[in-house]
Every structure is written in C-alpha cells, then in structure tokens.
C-alpha cells in the first residue's frame, strides 16, 4: 500500500470517529455556517466540537505549515482529505475570510512575526476578519480608492469610507486598503490590518434584495493604526491586494458545485413528478436541467484540474479569473433552475415549511456572486488581456 493509500485510511478512520453526525449534512443556508471569532455563539454543541477537533488536528487549514496552525499536508494528502470530507458530506469546520483570503496573502507577504501571530489565530478561528476594499466611488475601478492614511511617525491616522464590507458589524479585525501616497495611483496604496474595536470605526448595515443584511458601510474617523500592522511594503499594498483577490476568486468560484448532491435534475422529481417513461414531467425543464448537470459535472472536473494545477504551480496566474467567471455564472443558473423546479413552493418568503424562504433568499443572494470579488465583465476583461493577450483599447 502506498503512503497515500495509508493516509486515506487514516483520514477515513479519524473522520469516522471525530466528525459529529450533525456535521455530515449539507450546508443549506447561512445558519449552518461556522464563522467563529471573538463574539461567536455556536449553533449547537456539534458545531463547537467539530471545530475544536479540526483545530487540534490542523484540519481547518490542512496545507498550512504546522508552525502556523496547519497540518502541513502535501498537495496529494490535502486532496485526499477534501475527497474524504466530501464523501461523508462533512461541513467545513470553519468558514473564514482569514483562511481563504488573508492567510494566503500573509503566507506570501507577511513577516515571520505576523505569520506566527495572525495565522495561528486564523487557524484556531479566534479572530474573524472582514475585507475593506470597496468604496462608494471605487468598485470595479478599485485602484481609484480614496480612504487615506496619514503618516504620523509610529502610526497612521486613517480617514474614509468603505462599502459592501461583508459582516463588518460581526467581525473582529479588518484587512484594509488605504491610500498612503496621493501622488501615485498604483504604488500609493498600503495594506493595513486593524481591530474593528479601534476608536473611530463605525458600521451601518446594508439590506440586500434577499432581505438579509450581512453587509455594511464602514466609516473610519481618525482611526489610529500602529506601523507594525502593515502587510508587505509601504505603498506596495496593491501587490498584496491582487494576490489576495486571486484567492478570493478561487473561493467564490466553487459555488456552482452546489451542496454535494449529485444532480440538480434528480432533485426535481419530488416537486415536478415523473411521466410514464420515468422522465421529469416537464420536457423543456428536463432538457435545461440535463444541460445544467452536464455543465456542472464538467465544471467540477475543471475545478479539480484547477486545484491540481495551482498546487503544482502549473496553472496560468489569471486562471482564477476564469474559474470565478464560470463558477459564479453556473451558480446563478443553478438557482434559477431551483426556483423554476420548485414552483410556487419556492416563492414562500416567511413560512416554516420554506425555512423562512430559504430557496428564494439563496436565489437572490447568488445574484451577487458575479459582482462581489470583481464582476464577470471585469473577469472577462482580465482573461482577454492576460490570457488571450488581446490588445488594449
């Protein structure tokens, strides 16, 4: 037996013994997600146990070095862990902007002290992070951002406004893009970390079309940020930001794969019913669902290839843009079909049967997938220029 086969058996055994039954259910909505952090209340005992056991094993960030709270797994081992977790439908023990976005950027650009301090906290789910990039006038054209950090010797004083800051009101710390040089557009931005409880930080929720409001406007009024809380070099924060966006896109692009159930079409038998041939009793919708299932499985193959290539350094650096584009468009299609397939049941907004309108709210939420983290149009621009090398206007 190869080492990897042995590893698979070990993982399987560990999961069997340690993953609580309640955590082997697909994530059905926001309520099933564990974000952890200073102010977190666990939804149930199983969620807490599952996180603690994974933290102890380094499985919240399996491929990070053990020194920073990871399990130090090789690419092959990490893939096996993912496969085995998927096999039993295990929920992610911890969802975290720290893991998906800040962590990789710190691994690349952080000082040793920053790595030990922040990465450890992230791996253990102690600090919940939010992302302060967008501003009211700077969305797709992010580099035009205006929030300003004035140099005061051993610290900066930050003033300005961010928008769309996901969960800003629930997060502990923010990673934030701040202009530190007004004369240079690209090389005048720095990447700062600070506590959301610092005096001068306030947030105001933004309600979405889904009726939920996990997003905020965030205001900075003379916020003092110590100098050692910069990541990377002064005025070179754009490099960190771009690197991080690559990881953010990688994360968002997974969306099209749904909840682990094999086929969207098969799920519709319950609501639509079958005709005499055993086929969905709506020929046109069946055809659309079949096309969707083809595309979803093809995308799943691409996601696997993408991960394998990234981990082995073979991928094109702009490939995450392609995954983001394709994955989010697919996920939107999935939820359009969920709505169509479930008919009037899916329209209920508040009933208990509909779990508070979960299907409708999820459907509406997905419309942001092709906006957040960079819009589909911007992804296509990047593919055209950086991969296809088409001429600039």
């Amino acid at each position, binding site marked *: 037996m190869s080492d990897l086969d042995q590893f698979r058996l070990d993982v399987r055994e560990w999961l069997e013994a340690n993953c609580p039954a309640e955590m082997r259910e697909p994530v059905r909505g926001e309520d099933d997600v564990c974000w952890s952090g200073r102010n977190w209340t666990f939804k149930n005992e199983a969620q807490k146990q599952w996180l603690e056991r994974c933290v102890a094993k380094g499985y919240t960030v399996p491929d990070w070095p053990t020194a920073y709270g990871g399990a130090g797994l090789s690419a092959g081992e990490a893939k096996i862990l993912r496969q085995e977790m998927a096999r039993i439908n295990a929920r992610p023990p911890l969802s975290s902007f720290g893991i998906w976005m800040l962590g990789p950027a710190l691994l690349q650009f952080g000082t040793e002290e920053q790595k030990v301090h922040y990465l450890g906290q992230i791996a253990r789910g102690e600090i919940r992070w939010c992302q302060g990039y967008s501003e009211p006038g700077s969305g797709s054209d992010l580099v035009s951002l205006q929030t300003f950090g004035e140099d005061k010797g051993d610290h900066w004083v930050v003033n300005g406004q961010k928008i769309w800051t996901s969960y800003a009101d629930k997060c502990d710390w923010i990673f934030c893009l701040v202009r530190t040089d007004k004369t240079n557009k690209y090389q005048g931005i720095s990447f700062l970390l600070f506590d959301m409880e610092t005096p001068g930080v306030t947030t105001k929720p933004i309600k979405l079309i889904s009726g939920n409001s996990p997003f905020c406007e965030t205001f900075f009024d003379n916020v003092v940020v110590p100098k050692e809380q910069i990541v990377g070099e002064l005025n070179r924060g754009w490099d960190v930001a771009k690197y991080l966006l690559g990881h953010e896109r990688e994360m968002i692009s997974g969306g099209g794969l749904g909840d682990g159930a*094999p*086929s969207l*079409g*098969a799920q*519709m*038998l319950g609501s639509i019913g*079958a005709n005499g041939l*055993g*086929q*969905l009793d709506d020929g046109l919708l*069946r*055809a659309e*669902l*079949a*096309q969707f*299932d*083809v*595309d979803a*499985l*093809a*995308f799943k*193959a*691409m996601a*696997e*290839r*993408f991960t*394998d*290539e990234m981990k*082995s350094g*073979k991928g094109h650096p702009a490939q995450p843009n*392609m995954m983001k*584009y*394709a994955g989010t468009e697919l996920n939107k299609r999935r939820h359009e079909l969920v709505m169509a397939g479930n008919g009037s049941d899916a329209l209920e907004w508040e009933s208990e049967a509909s779990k508070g309108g979960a299907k409708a709210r999820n459907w509406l939420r997905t419309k942001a997938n092709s906006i957040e983290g960079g819009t589909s*149009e911007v*992804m*296509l*621009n990047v*593919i*055209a*220029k950086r*991969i*296809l*090398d*088409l*001429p*600039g*206007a």
Partner: protein
Amino acid sequence: MPMYLNEDQAMLRDSAREFLKSEAPVSHLRKLRDDNCKDGFRHALWKQFGEMGFTGILIGEDDGGLGLGHVEAGVVLEEIGRNLSPSPFLTTAIAGVAALNHGGQHLKDKFFPGILAGDTVLALAIDEGAKHRPSHITTKAERSGNGFKLTGNKQFVIQGASADALIVAARTAGAAGETDGLTLFAVDKDAANMSMDSTRLVDSSMAAHVTFDGVEVDGDAVIGEVDNGWQVLSSLLRAGRAGSAAELVGVGAGAMDMTVDYLKQRKQFGRLIGEFQALQHRAAHLYSEMEIARAAVLKAQQLLDEGKDSAEIYVSVAKAKAGRTTNLTVREGVQMHGGIGMTDEYDIGFYMKRDRALNEFMGDANFHAGRVAEIFGY
C-alpha cells in the same frame, strides 16, 4: 491521478503536435478534397501513424502495442482535431481496438499486426438511421451452418469503402430498443452480398451506406459473446465517444486560435478589432468554455483508464460539453472573421464543417445530455 498530463503524456503530446502540424495540417485536408481523394485520407499518412507508434496506444504490450490508455489516445486526437487531419485513427485504433480487445486471440492476431503497422483500416457499422440510437439496431444475424447470415442496412460508416473490415453490430435476438440480444462481428471487406455506396460528407470525409443482403460470416467473426454484444459495443462506444470528444476539443482549440489571431491582425474603424470589448468578452467566454470542456474530457479519460463506474456518465458529459462548446467556438469563429470567414479560401469554415460531423458521430450533445439525465434517473 492529478488532473494534468504527466511527463510521458506531455512528451507524447509534443511529438503528436509536431508530427501532425508538419505532416497533416489543414492544407493537407484541403488538398485531399481538391484532388477528390476517394478514401478521404492518405494511406501513406496512416503508415506514418504506425511508425510513430500511435496506432498501438490501446493495444496491449502482449500483442505488440504500447498498452497505454484513453488519456494518451486523447492527446493524439486533440492534435488531430487541431489540424483537421483526416485519418482512420479514431475508428480503427481507438474504437475498433477497444472492441477487438474483447475478442478472442484469433481476432487480435488477425487484425492487430496490420493496425500496428498502419496498414489495416477498420470501419464501424453501428448506426442505421440519421441519428445515433445504438440500441435501436435491427440488422439481423441469423444462425446459418456454423456461422451467421447478416441482413440489414447501415449508414454513416466512416471510411467504410477504404476499410479492410467492418465492425458490425447486429441482432441475434430481441427487438429494436433492447440492449440484450446484440452481437458484434468483424466482417471482411470482400464478403459476398455486401454492397457499399460511398459518399462524401460536408467535412470532406468519406462515409458509406452499407447493405447486407445475406452476408455469410463464420463463428470466428464474432467479437465477444453471442447475444452479449452490448458489453462490447459499450466499450467501443465509450472509447469512440471519449475520443471524439477529445478530437472536438482539438477542433475547437484550432478554431479559437485562428480567431484570436485574427482579432489581433484585422483593423476596422482605425483599430484592431481585438480591442473591441464586445469581441473580447466573447473570446474570453470561449476560452473559459473550452478549458472546461477539455477538463471534462480528461476526467472521462482518466476514469476510463482507472476502470471506474463513473466513467460512463463522464463520457457523456465530455461528449455533450465538447459538442456544445466546439459548436459555439466555430460559429463565433466564422462570425468574428466577418466576410472572409465565409470564403472557401479561408480555413475557418473547415473547422465549422468538421465540428458538425464530429458532433453527430456517436451521439450529439442532446443525446448525451439526455443520457446524463437517464443515468441520474430523471
């Protein structure tokens, strides 16, 4: 297996790419067509395929082949697609060999040496109607002496008139629509009472209508077991479908490269047309779909090589995805070329024609999406 080519496979790809680009680029196809070549491919090129070792990819080492798999077959097929190189590779060395691997040693001894040498050509006589419906076979094979007598009609038999033997799917029992009761035969080209009407297709390839009017074959011609031909046919179809999906990806890649190049050269309104965002976004969309199709094809091939059950569904995913994607790519290719894309002189139209034929081969994108729905049970 990681989802990219290993070193050996990448080397094979490089040599296939170099070989096909120099020996059989699109101009090769154009010349065959202009010369009204009655085979639709050149035997000398097939011989070279043998010399390169390509024809032995799916033949086991015990039988003198390379004993490789569907991933390697696909690597060669993608390059064939990219160059629109006409050859019997897919029907003979991939689908044909996949079927013969179920046959007795006498069949392997009879056909494999010729295939390895690039001499022997096989053709597949499966379809009977305009659309691919492999369970709807009505061609009859009745017992006669210690052999069988075949009666029926086949169509879309690619390179049938140039083949040394046909692999024929016929019914020894059961009725159209059933998968039980089929039997596969290897029928020599000069069998009595077999007639062929060979015709040129839109992509300049040649295909035959074949009539079996009481064609006698002996028991040795049976591939696999009598009445259990579905198993052999399924192997043949899996190989042919995954293979044609790989070739389609090559066709799409070739068309996309041509188109993107054109966007970088053609000026209108005082600018390169590749500067227009309307075209950039469509080109970027094509890129993304092509990459996904290529990944789906690789997944299907890997699952086939690993002998996994899920290969069945992924082969259909691959053919459906590659079919739809390449079709989009060739349509966009002609459109983005503007008027010049409509001319015979320019190559992009050749890609559109090959796409149409390959899409139809062994089930189009709708057929395979329907299969995915069936396998998932809805």
